[in-house]
Structures are given as structure tokens and as C-alpha cells.
């Protein structure tokens, strides 16, 4: 089987967490212990998750590489495969191929402050890095997380948001779009770029990691530029349609850059070199 790149690991769904309407997190454990022992990944990498008989779907690994023995993925029910996944119960077996792609250079960030900015369902690719950094917290200066969603119910990882809020070594700002607040909402109200501008985090010795819907990203980059962030210090992930995950099926490229192999993690400086095709 070693020469069959398309053979997935068999994974048991250990735990299903309901995150938001249509959004679930699976905790997956390797059925074969040897697979578990050999498996390693780094923050930012992704995989192909499958329901046998339905197909494969691409998403990031949402858990941190510092947490051993399992991986997690968070997905929204939107297409054929994510609907089938969503119907899977705890104990069911699914397929997983990976890890693929490049990684956030977490080790290179040691000694710096980290600013995480996420919108909606794009917190999962960032959660991996957040926990990776928090599990080696002493290596970083300030850690700031700005997270927004359309409405209160659309915020994912609600329990973890509470954890981060309680921590003294994390500054968490949550926000919902105007009209998305609930009567007891205590966070900010406003679009993510506006809230970033208002919070005005320092760009001194700071890395910004930005993941979100295209419109949020588009309006957040100029705010970061105004705050003094260099393009080299702003990181994001691209998510193009993929089938293989390793540079052969031919659809995720943006110009000559393959999101599956050269990405999914890019700096804004790298994005500016790419043609407008993503």
C-alpha cells in the first residue's frame, strides 16, 4: 500500500462537537496504532477527509501538533461530502489522507508578539496555530486574538473562546456583525476590519495571521498596513478546490504557484506576487 498515494488512514470519530449551525468538529483517532505512531504534522497543513462511497473533501487540521494522539477537523455542511460527514456519528469510521502542504513558520516567530485575526468558519485553520503557540506560550510576547462572526450563534469554538478570555496571557476580542448580537452579548459589534482598526494592535515585532472570508481579508489588509505591518509579517491561507493534495490533479494553482504544495500558507508579500486568480 505504500506506493498508493491515495490510500487513506482509517480514523474513528471519537467525539463530535456542535460548533454553530451547520458546523461541527470531529476528533479523529487512528484505528491502526502504527499509523498513529508514525503520523506527524505541523501547523497549517491540511488533509483529504472522506466518507467511503461519497468522496473526499479538503480541510485543514484544526488541532495543534502539540496535542498528540488525535487530530481534529472543523467543517461546515455545504456540499455532498460535508453533508455525509455531518451525518456520521461518534464511532463511525472515515478516511483521512495527509498531511499536505506547507506550514506556518511558528518556530521562526519565537520572541515576537502574535496577532490573530479570524472571521467566521476561518478560525479552524488558525486554531491549530493558536494552540500551537499557547502550548509554548513562554516563547512569545503578546498574543492577541480578534475573532468575528456574522452572529453570536455563528461563533465557533465557544468553549475555547471562554478559555482564551479567562487567560491572563491572551488578549481576546470577539465581535459580531451589526444586527448579529444577542441581548446578553458582551463583545464588540462591528465588522472585523473596523474592530481591528479600533483595537489598533501594535505592529512592533509582531506577526499578524489573518484568515477569513475574502471580503474580510480584503478590508483587513489595508488596516494592517496603516498600523505599520510589513507584507512579509502578514500571513494567511488560501483555500482552492483540490482533489489530490500533492500537485498532480491540476486545479488549485494560482499562476505557477500550487496552493497544495507551495501553500496553503502564504505571506501577503507572496500573495502580491500572484496573478489575480484565487
Amino acid at each position: 500500500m505504500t506506493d498508493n498515494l491515495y490510500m487513506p488512514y482509517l480514523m474513528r470519530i471519537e467525539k463530535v462537537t456542535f460548533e454553530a449551525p451547520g458546523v461541527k468538529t470531529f476528533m479523529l483517532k487512528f484505528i491502526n496504532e502504527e499509523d498513529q505512531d508514525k503520523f506527524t504534522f505541523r501547523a497549517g497543513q491540511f488533509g483529504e477527509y472522506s466518507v467511503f462511497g461519497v468522496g473526499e473533501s479538503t480541510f485543514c487540521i484544526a488541532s495543534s501538533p502539540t496535542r498528540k494522539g488525535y487530530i481534529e477537523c472543523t467543517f461546515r455542511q455545504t456540499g455532498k461530502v460535508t453533508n455525509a460527514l455531518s451525518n456520521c456519528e461518534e464511532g463511525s469510521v472515515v478516511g483521512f489522507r495527509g498531511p499536505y502542504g506547507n506550514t506556518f513558520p511558528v518556530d521562526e516567530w519565537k520572541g515576537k508578539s502574535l496577532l490573530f485575526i479570524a472571521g467566521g468558519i476561518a478560525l479552524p485553520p488558525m486554531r491549530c496555530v493558536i494552540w500551537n503557540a499557547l502550548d509554548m506560550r513562554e516563547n512569545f510576547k503578546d498574543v492577541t486574538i480578534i475573532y468575528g462572526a456574522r452572529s453570536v450563534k455563528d461563533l465557533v469554538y465557544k468553549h475555547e473562546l471562554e478559555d482564551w478570555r479567562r487567560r491572563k496571557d491572551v488578549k481576546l476580542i470577539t465581535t459580531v456583525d451589526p444586527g448579529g448580537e444577542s441581548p446578553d452579548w458582551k463583545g464588540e459589534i462591528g465588522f472585523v476590519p473596523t474592530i481591528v482598526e479600533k483595537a489598533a494592535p501594535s505592529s512592533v515585532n509582531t506577526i499578524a495571521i489573518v484568515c477569513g472570508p475574502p471580503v474580510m481579508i480584503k478590508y483587513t489588509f489595508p488596516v494592517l498596513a496603516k498600523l505599520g505591518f510589513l507584507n512579509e509579517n502578514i500571513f494567511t491561507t488560501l483555500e482552492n478546490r483540490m482533489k489530490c493534495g500533492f500537485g498532480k490533479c491540476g486545479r488549485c494553482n494560482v499562476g505557477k504557484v500550487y496552493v497544495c504544495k507551495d501553500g496553503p500558507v502564504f505571506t501577503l508579500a507572496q500573495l502580491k506576487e500572484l496573478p489575480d486568480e484565487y
Partner: protein
Amino acid sequence: MNIDKHIIRKDSLEKLFDILRQNSKTIYAPVSRNSKVIFRKTDNFAEIAAGCIQTDISSKEIAFPRTERLLDYSRSADGISVKGFDSGDIPEIVLWGVRPCDTVGIGELSAIFNWDYKDGIYNNRLSKVTVLGFSCSKADEYCFCTSVGGNPGNTAGSDILFTRLGDNGDFLAEVLTEKGIAVFALATGFFEKAGEIKKEEFLAEVPVRFNLEVLSNNLEKFFESGQWVDLSLKCLGCGVCAYVCPACACFDIQDEAHGRKGSRFRCWDSCAFSLFTLHTSGHNPRDVQSQRWRQRIMHKFSYMPDRLSVYGCTGCGRCSRACPADMNILESLISIQEANV
């Protein structure tokens, strides 16, 4: 290794075919059926369409089938068992009568399937194939192998290359690889040592239509050009260009379930389809046909040379012959090469 040159008489070619068959080789050769010439499994030398310029579909499916089973699964009360494709099931194949524009395509496909991750299924299939190439003594106005570094007698990718020496029907046989030697060894008696032969005199004339280097340099600056719209106006997005191409490797992965059992397949796909890059959200990075035609040309003539050091086109001209809207890739390539960028 040194190329070993021999002569084989016309009637000995059939004997060679029979000997291969007697040695339990599965032979695929150009066979005409329903007015289409395609590489098919054959035991009958007489049915080989030897005179055709080329087959309607390239020979790539011998190593890269249009539908490839990747794994089988079956569910039971105890869970699920998954069995990967077993390379041991691949038969030894002799590919007979392949034109140089297809044998060159094998190298281009191999570059894709071995870029960093080695695709074992493809490599195992290819390792079981012996390629008996046949040079071209005829060409048509769609052929442009000489514009992309090839030629009608190109040995690249063949294990033995046969070149017909004029009308008397004798063939020059260039034994090029270990696999070629293995075939030669089965039928040594039919081969005679070749004297001085000017192979080029017996090859089709294929004029050079554009300058490849200028084309590649222009493409570096052509991405934003408004010309892509004009060049692709006729494109219907049917994808036939990719299906007939010897160097197109893009694929889809699909599951098929039958009750508690099923399989996962890799299937040919095409960058011409609107669904190819469509996100679940509805966003499509290549939303219109001109972006897809640009991808096809850029991939073959800019991205592949840049990333894999090979072009993704062999100049076979099949895409233009097959196009229902009469698109001709040569027209695009020539006009990009002539553009002032």
C-alpha cells in the same frame, strides 16, 4: 547506452508481433473501429491501422487509464475494510505503433506524476509497458512536433523505434533501452545489422511554426492580456482537448457505492470545465472560459517548463483535430509568439 541499429523486413514485423503474443505479452496497437482509431488490445496483426497519421486518442491511457480504481471498501458489522489498488494485477503490455508525439508525452506525464510525491500506481503501470514507437512518414497541417522540440523520428520515450524506409516496406529498428533489448532478444533472427542509413530522408516534413523560446518569454508577461478573450471565443468548454491529449494529466477523484461495497476512482478531468475549480461557496477562481483557455496554454507552455522542466505539449495536434468548434491551439500559440508584449 549506444543505440543499436538494425533492419527488419516488412513480413518479419508480423512474425515479431506473433512472437510477442506467444510470449504472453498483451499487445495494444492502433485499431480502427467505428471510424475511430484507438489503442486497443489486439491479437491480430492484420487489424493494426499502420498507415494512419496517428490515433484519435493518445496512448496515455495505457499508463494513466481514463478511470483508475484507487481502492475498494466494504462495510460490515465489524466496521469497514479498505483494500488499495494492487499493482501486482497490472499485466505486462507491449504498446505497438506509437508515434513519437505520444512517446514524448510519456515523459511529460511522468514529470507530473513524479513531482515530489511519486505516484506509485502510475509508475507501476508504466514499468510494465514496453513502447514500440513508429516514426512518422506522413503528417498533416495540424502536426507541429518540431515547434516544441520534437521531430517525426524522435526516439525519446520509445524502447524500440521503427522507421519505415521508403516504399519497399523495410524498417529501421533503433533498440534504445533494456526493455527494447528484451524484445530484440526474443526475435534476434529477424533483425539484420543496419548499414549507413539516413533516417531523416524517410521522415515526414513538419515545418516549425513558432519559436518556443519567444513564446515562453512572451507568456511570462501575457497573463493579463485582453487577447485571451479573443483567442478563446469559440471554446465550448467541452474538454475534448484534454481527453485526446498525450500530456494532459488533470484528474478528478470520485467514489461509487453499491450497497455496502464501493470503490474510489481517479478519472480524467479537464481545465476547460467550469466545475473544475468551482468552490463549494460558489466562488470560482476561473469563472469564464477565457481564464480556462489561459490556464491550458499557461500550464503547458509556462508553468510546466518552470516547475517541472518539461513542456506539456508534444505538438501532436489532436486537440485541434478533435475540437468541435474548430479551435486550433497553433493559432493561439502563433499569435502569442507574435504579440508585442
